[in-house]
């Protein structure tokens, strides 16, 4: 799904201005601070962001292997394995939406792998056509016909109850082509990070053309963290909820939406703590060095948001109708987290990295 990051800066501005005014006297601005900032950016760029795309690329290849196996031996076990692999990629991708900036945005990869809704009519036209279904063919299709959700549709079926016996030969061909395209695009993001963007972020303020100051990099990260809260609370949860329309759900066939949302929010903690594949320096370390109460507040709001999502025990499409107070509570808790990130963490980082 295309992303729209949007946070009001009304609160940030006055605080920012105060922060700008007296930086010379700021005791934080010492050599240790500078080392820590550099360490944090180095760790986040390599071991969180780049690592997540490396992980996603590996998992798309696993899905491809599972789809190949399913196409050779079409049974329910192999279908189940492919579904597990699809969900595994989603786990990584949804977490990475908490750092949705850089090549995945500027190279327009996001809409090509994660557009919702699926164009059902066109999908049926393709399946009933004589077109050769290969990766090049998929690459030329519109966004609503490729990426995660058409694959999800083919693996689960409209109502989520598809059996392997129901997989038609053309569906298998299309599944293979879609998966191969996903592998290619995942590799593209991975390569964009490892071949340059990782260094751009790590070297912010030290020769990076993308981030001329470390402050710009920290602000970008804080904006992305708050931005995913906004997207989950104000869009992914709110739009289906307000409309009372399960058709607006994000991953409806696999009934994976709550997991998707939870992983979006988990991604915030991953980049905050600098902990994805391995544990390293994160935003947490700069906050804890100066403001333990802010650190505690971020973590408690984050835990509350995760718990509120966890309390929704029905598939999201049902929950918007039958568990309205739980869905409302999740939106509230995520919005509270967004407010801390936007109105406290971001100004803190602006001042700290001045």
């Amino acid at each position: 799904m295309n992303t729209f990051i949007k946070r009001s800066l009304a609160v940030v501005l006055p605080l920012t201005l105060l922060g700008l005014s007296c930086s010379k006297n700021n005791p934080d601005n010492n050599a240790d601070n500078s080392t820590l900032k550099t360490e944090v950016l180095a760790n986040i760029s390599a071991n969180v962001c780049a690592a997540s795309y490396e992980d996603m690329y590996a998992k798309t290849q696993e899905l491809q292997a599972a789809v190949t196996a399913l196409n050779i031996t079409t049974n329910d076990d192999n279908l189940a394995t492919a579904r597990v692999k699809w969900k595994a990629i989603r786990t990584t991708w949804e977490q990475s939406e908490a750092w949705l900036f850089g090549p995945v945005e500027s190279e327009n990869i996001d809409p090509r792998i994660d557009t919702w809704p699926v164009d059902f009519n066109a999908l049926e036209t393709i399946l009933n056509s004589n077109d050769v279904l290969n990766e090049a063919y998929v690459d030329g299709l519109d966004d609503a016909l490729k990426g995660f959700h058409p694959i999800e549709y083919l693996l689960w079926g409209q109502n989520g109850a598809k059996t392997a016996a129901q997989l038609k030969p053309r569906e298998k061909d299309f599944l293979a082509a879609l998966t191969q395209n996903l592998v290619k695009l995942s590799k593209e993001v991975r390569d964009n990070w490892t071949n340059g963007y990782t260094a751009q972020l790590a070297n912010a303020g030290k020769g990076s053309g993308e981030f001329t100051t470390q402050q710009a990099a920290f602000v970008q990260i804080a904006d992305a963290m708050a931005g995913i809260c906004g997207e989950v609370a104000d869009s992914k949860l709110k739009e289906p909820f307000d409309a009372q329309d399960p058709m607006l759900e994000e991953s409806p066939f696999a009934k994976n939406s709550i997991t998707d949302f939870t992983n979006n929010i988990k991604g915030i903690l991953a980049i905050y703590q600098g902990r994805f594949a391995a544990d390293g320096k994160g935003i947490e370390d700069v906050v804890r060095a100066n403001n333990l109460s802010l650190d505690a507040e971020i973590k408690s709001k984050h835990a509350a948001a995760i718990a509120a999502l966890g309390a929704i025990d029905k598939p999201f499409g049902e929950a918007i109708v039958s568990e309205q107070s739980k869905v409302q509570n999740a939106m509230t808790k995520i919005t509270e987290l967004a407010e801390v990130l936007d109105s406290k963490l971001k100004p803190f980082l602006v001042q700290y990295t001045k």
Partner: protein
Amino acid sequence: MRKTTIAILFILATMVALQVACRKADSVSPDDNPDSEWLSGGSQTAFDEGGGAFSHAFATLPANLLRVHEIGDGQFNATFVSAPAPLNPGLGPIFNNVACSSCHVSDGRGKVPGLGESAANMLFRLSIPGEGEHGNPVPVPGYGDQLQTRALLGKTREGDIAITYTETTYKFADGATYKLRAPTYTFTALYTAMPGNVMLSPRVAAPVFGLGLLEAITDGTILANADPDDADGDGISGKANMVWDVLKNKKVLGRFGWKANQPSLLQQVAAAYNGDIGITNSLFPKESSEGQTQFDSDPNSKSYELTDSLLHSVQFYVRTLSVPARRNAADNKVIAGKGLFRSAGCIKCHKADIRTGVDVSLPQVSNQLIHPYTDLLLHDMGAGLADNRPDFMASGTEWRTAPLWGIGLTQKVNGHTNFLHDGRARNIIEAIMWHGGEAASAKNKVNNMSKTERDALVAFVESL
């Protein structure tokens, strides 16, 4: 005075004193005064120089209006699919892209296609010679007024365009060289014959932030800068475009689009839905393919595909996107560049300061001193940039002055620096050196600058 008032004044005075006491030349902050040149969008300025810099809602929107903005945001990003479908149906049958955000990536500027790529973030206006009943360009039979380069599966797209560039090396007065690439456009894969006298105008998607502020400038303010016959003899004319307003059913001042051919944000948005995505709406209720062979008289087309409420939410969304603040405005090089920008005469069309009018329907855009660096008027830009396709009052060599606010963040937000209406310029200096016509004198002054001066000029533009 009551004690609390005195206390507050004391605190304020202390804060001001602190700010002044520790201010250095390079730490001038945007709060110097509310009309500060740092605040490109007046009070609707966003402080973000990252990838999301063009995507901030006005900071002063109350919660209920922020919600409308968010709904518009969702709709701006909504991907349309073929009908019938439960969600976002109505795409096509012919179209250029599937969502507003597909071309206006991150609310910013479209990228020109690389070699062999389809023109995804561009579109091509078409017409044949003559004038329509409202003075509008005459649509091409079988094609309409733009080329739809994509179609639903099973339908036929109208065609595509191949772009090739011819690169030429030029010299500045100091001997340093620069290269400009001139595009050539060739129709490919046309579904039916194109008349020989067709006129073609390429357009890249323009940024959509700050448009509500531009809309709030009164006609009188814009017209005050117009000088169509160059009565003052400064070599710069400035002409208003007068274009057709679908709702008002009359000609009004045009201010949006590369040729100022759209009068309002509502009409701009509605026309884009109709022409670019194939979505009918109350302003443009006919499918763009109507009258063409691939038009499919779908029963759906009897009602609008986009409701008025969603159309208005998108209008509100682009109306309430704030403008990024300037960066490095107090940098010595930037200050030097600003002087050169003025002395070269760039400032005559790229107007720095404009005050918006009062619009009681949206106080947020009212009475703001903004710094858009445009006069919103048409100027003759010379043969090099000409598309030779008149558009209402705009001649084939005239273009509307492009706003420069936010331009320095294009690389950050959009990952490229393709400028001008067709993205031919690969950076700011190329864009400057493409200027001709009325801008020839300014261009020549830049040509005669030293490298240090040119660098300063570019640094200034990049600070916007």
